[in-house]
């Protein structure tokens, strides 16, 4: 069965500092991995994805994520955090065969302090 874990309910970081939001996954075979962001009272916005190829993928708003197959992780990173990055972040996995549903983690609230 597919699953995603986001071990931190909340991450606090000072503005200008690098940020990391952690995600680990469990899936049979090769996964498709995604990060989404949710601002208050809004739907989810797609940030980036890993399908294949380079382990470091770049996405919207300066975010990037590193795929690590041996550690089954897909951590979200940004070199310099902005106050406006404060939001709820979800990691998701989708299988490449069989069921195509997306399984989401429980979310990590990122708070960037000015």
């Amino acid at each position: 069965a597919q699953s995603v874990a986001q071990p931190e309910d909340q991450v606090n970081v000072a503005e200008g500092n690098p940020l990391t939001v952690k995600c680990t996954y469990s899936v049979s075979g090769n996964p498709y991995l995604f990060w989404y962001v949710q601002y208050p009272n809004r739907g989810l916005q797609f940030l980036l994805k890993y399908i294949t190829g380079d382990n470091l993928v770049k996405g919207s708003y300066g975010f990037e994520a590193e795929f690590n197959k041996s550690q089954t992780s897909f951590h979200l990173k940004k070199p310099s955090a902005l106050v406006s990055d404060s939001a709820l972040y979800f990691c998701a996995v989708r299988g490449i065969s069989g069921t195509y549903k997306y399984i989401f983690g429980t979310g990590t609230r990122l708070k960037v302090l000015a």
Partner: protein
Amino acid sequence: GAGVSQSPSNKVTEKGKDVELRCDPISGHTALYWYRQRLGQGLEFLIYFQGNSAPDKSGLPSDRFSAERTGESVSTLTIQRTQQEDSAVYLCASSGLGHLNTEAFFGQGTRLTVV
């Protein structure tokens, strides 16, 4: 349209009434998904459509919940005899299935309040 559209954006209903939630996916997207998000919580998968058929409806909580999709386009999620526990934001998403267009795009959601 340019994005996934959901209606209504807000719905308040009395316990025991039936409600219908509508989703218009991005044109050409063959896959359509419904999720539920309770206040302060993550996304709970409900059902997935491929075209007009639903190969995975394992997340529907009870037989009070049903969904259909027609014309490989619009989908409706119906909740019969609503209960207070059904109060949540219902999110719809659509995606292609090709190798290059795997990400799902979400609508703004329908906030359902059962009183």
